[in-house]
């Protein structure tokens, strides 16, 4: 393995900026890794070597002329395939967009480029981000780098696996109900869902518009802070974008944990949680305590209502968001149709996979006249109550600590057979989306099968710095940090 791959994104960028490493060398290393592993892992839908080298040489020229290069100068980065890139196909891992080439680039990707990041390819995902395993991808599943027989989690599974396996230095994912944090946990990398409105959604193909948020997947917490700073922006093209002045996230890494109050919801440690995961998370809590944080258990309440509320709201929005895929303007169009309605039906029947259809049906049902109040409105009320419960919790705590997922990565094929069980796997992550809160998944060891475990920290809106502070102190304190390069030693490759 090329030694460069052991570096973090921040370390690599600093060497590229000083000229000790050339941008092309980093790309060579990553593409070599991709050549070796991609056949087994399948992290990418599209790899853009040509574009990446062109970007790298433009950047190198800048550096050679002693011009300012950004904090991610020359860092190869994978972008989830539901984030639009002009001229580079963006499929959402769906047949219906198999050949779709966007006419514009998402704001978050423009920001990454401005920071010097090099886009190397589009990461595999669950079709339209609907799934928790990356198995619903039309292009085939991504495999977990720690056990090829297992899933990497999802929906940002390609992004997480690529970072874990050295097929990229960092990645962007999107998180609607845990789609960044859960695969980060399954693949032993750091993943953050920022506060709703922090990263522009312009160019992110919508799943659940009121819940979606783009975020980083990285080798360690420092990379996470730097990437997050790079992609955070107030964007007038996104009406839900928030103008923030506190996006100097790396500053949070300098502070210790003294005085930090951490709440641990008892509700998160009940039935259904794998004991090995439970003990790893509790150990992580103890590490934070040893670093100066105070711990207290409490009852968050309403945890059981989060899943039905989430699937109602997300599916309702998805059923509407996905209406535009109809074969008229772009994407797949079924052949041999007799009339308009047949074209709509055949195109969508052939173009969407079963999980997407399931959610479109569910969402269409809950919005139907006569059911709207009973389902959609009630779900919105639950959402408001959950937000209130968190507000109460954050009047007492800086962060809430818990597991990311009830178990470590399941076997391939296991989840698709039982979608309800798969939905229940989102129990710890969806509340942050419903309440718009930031949350981070941090690796905290492995189970007896050698599979990574993550713990999750959630903070109040706009308190990403608290999350980064705690996560960074944890990572520093644990020699066995999964975030750096440890993942590859235990990896299957």
């Amino acid at each position, binding site marked *: 393995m090329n030694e460069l791959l052991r570096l973090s994104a921040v370390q690599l960028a600093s060497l590229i900026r000083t000229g000790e490493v050339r941008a092309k060398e980093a790309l060579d290393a990553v593409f070599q890794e991709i050549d070796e592993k991609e056949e087994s892992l399948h992290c990418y839908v599209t790899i853009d070597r040509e574009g990446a080298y062109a970007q790298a040489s433009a950047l190198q020229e800048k550096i050679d002329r002693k011009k300012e290069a950004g904090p991610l100068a020359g860092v190869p980065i994978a972008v989830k395939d*539901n*984030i*639009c890139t002009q001229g580079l196909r*963006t499929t*959402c891992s769906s047949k219906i*967009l198999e050949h*779709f080439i*966007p*006419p*514009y680039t*998402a704001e978050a990707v423009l920001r990454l480029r401005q920071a010097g990041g090099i886009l190397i390819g589009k990461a595999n995902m669950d079709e339209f981000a609907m799934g928790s395993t990356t198995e619903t991808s039309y292009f085939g599943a991504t495999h977990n780098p720690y056990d090829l027989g297992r899933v990497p989690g999802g929906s940002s599974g390609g992004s997480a696996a690529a970072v874990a396996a050295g097929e990229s230095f960092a990645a962007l994912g999107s998180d609607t109900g845990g789609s960044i944090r859960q695969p980060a946990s399954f693949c032993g990398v750091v993943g953050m869902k920022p506060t709703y409105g922090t990263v522009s*959604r*312009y*160019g*992110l*193909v*919508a799943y*659940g*518009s*009121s819940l979606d948020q783009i975020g980083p997947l990285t080798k360690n917490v420092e990379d996470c802070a730097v990437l997050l700073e790079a992609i955070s922006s107030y964007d*007038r*093209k*996104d*009406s*839900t974008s928030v103008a923030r002045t506190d996006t100097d996230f790396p500053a949070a890494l300098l502070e210790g944990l003294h005085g930090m109050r951490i709440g641990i919801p008892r509700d998160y440690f009940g039935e259904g949680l794998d004991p090995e995961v439970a003990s790893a998370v509790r150990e992580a809590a103890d590490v934070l305590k040893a670093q100066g944080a105070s711990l207290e258990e409490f009852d968050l309440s309403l945890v059981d209502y989060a899943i039905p509320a989430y699937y109602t709201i997300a599916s*309702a*929005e998805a*059923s*509407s968001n996905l*209406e*535009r*895929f*109809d074969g*008229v*303007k*772009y994407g797949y169009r079924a052949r041999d149709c007799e009339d*308009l309605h047949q074209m*709509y039906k055949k195109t969508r029947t052939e173009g969407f996979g079963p999980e997407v259809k399931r959610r479109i049906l569910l969402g*269409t049902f809950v*919005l*139907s*006249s006569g059911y*709207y109040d009973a389902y*959609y409105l009630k779900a919105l009320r639950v959402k408001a109550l959950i937000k209130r419960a968190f507000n109460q919790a954050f009047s007492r705590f800086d962060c809430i600590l818990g597991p990311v997922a009830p178990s470590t990565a399941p076997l391939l094929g296991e989840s698709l057979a039982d979608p309800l069980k798969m939905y229940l796997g989102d129990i710890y992550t969806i509340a942050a989306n419903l309440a718009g809160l930031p949350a981070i998944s941090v690796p905290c060891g492995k189970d007896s099968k050698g599979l990574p475990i993550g713990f999750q920290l959630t903070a109040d809106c706009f308190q990403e710095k608290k999350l980064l502070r705690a996560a960074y102190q944890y990572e520093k304190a644990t020699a066995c940090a999964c975030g750096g390069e440890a993942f590859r030693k235990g990896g299957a490759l």
Partner: protein
Amino acid sequence: MREYETVIGLEVHVELATKTKIFCGCSTAFGGAPNTQTCPVCTGMPGSLPVLNRQVVEYALAVGLATNCQVNQYCRFDRKNYFYPDNPQNYQISQLYLPICHDGFVEIDTSQGTKKVGIHEIHMEEDAGKLIHDEWEDCSLVDYNRSGVPLIEIVSDPDMRNAEEVIAYLEKLRLLIQYLGASDCKLQEGSMRADVNLSVRVAGTEGLGTRTEMKNLNSFKAIARAIDGERARQIELLEEGKGVVQQTRRWDDNKEYSYAMRSKEDARDYRYFPEPDLVCVHISDEWIERVRKAQPEFRDQKKRRYREEYGIPDYDIEMLTGSKHLADLFEATVALGSPPKKVSNWLMVETMRLLKEKEMDVEEIRFEPKHLAALIEMVQKGKINSSVAKEVFAEMFERDVDPCAYVEEKGLGANGDEEELEGLLKSVLAKNPQSVEDYRNGKKKAYGFLVGQVMKATAGKADPGTVNRLLGKLL
């Protein structure tokens, strides 16, 4: 036959006169080459997001205040979901749950006196694109230039009872909105569209009958015919003991008959829900006050002022204020120093004649006030006579030419130089001693002959007034 009463409510769509679309920066200009005024947002590209055009709220608010509406100071957009290719996202961003304005009214004047028509609500929404069916190639094409053009929908209460009231209501709305500058409200071009909800009931009864909704009404005349036609159709059904079916019907103005498009049973379920990509619109007290203060002088106020300020006849006032465009033209010309009655005459006689002749709308008048003022001045100063003035005016009307330059260029100027004209007169008199003699002997006909000779000699350009004066002096 029993006596029936007609109950009518209107849904009026008005295209707002913003420069850019409601949710993106694309131009709203009419008539561009297909799909040249589009972007990822108004073509429904994956990942694109809407951003509300503030001017749309401003116009909707202005119309709401002018129609005495209450304002929802926290209003919101909703998605109306339905599949059709002219609608790129397959949902329309509209307002259902919290429309911007509600519970207003306008007063209309009819032959029965004034009457209030209630405004149920006004909401903002986006227009769809345009489908073009190519029979030759047997395919359908779609132009998204109109997709995302801002609309307001004004929903009235079922307060109207006949076509006259409906037309008066529409005229009232049209004028209010034109005066606000919020839209040009052209029925023919579709910038104002009215759907008529109509039911009948036995006169004197209270409850509402089953209604139908009629679409495709492209002129006031078509609306009046459709109302009479639909009223007759419904009464006939009831008289035959059959019921009226709640349905949407399409009016065919050539056949003067409406055809059922869809009935309540196959009504679409639009699955409305709050648009998650847009935030709540907060309309502050200050904003409302600012818009209220900026409201223009509406027709009724204008009429009063014209009477006091310009002293022109009521008939003129009625005509001039019937169009904001005409009233503006009138005021601007008068402001340049032309006598009000002269301006009014040009606008009401020659302008109307040419409009009728060319089948044009008042809004299409293009000549500038300064040109009309210049023309009036030339006539007053005797630089051209009135028949030349009409000819020049026709040119002005057609191509907005500068009348002074045009007269100069074409050599139409009256021989304004009195000395020159006098000399010419003298030679005419010298050549026609018999006529001079006859005139002096009391033969009035001879005078006309002499004037004719003068006009002939000047190729019709001499000002008749000046000719009369000079001729009188010389004779």
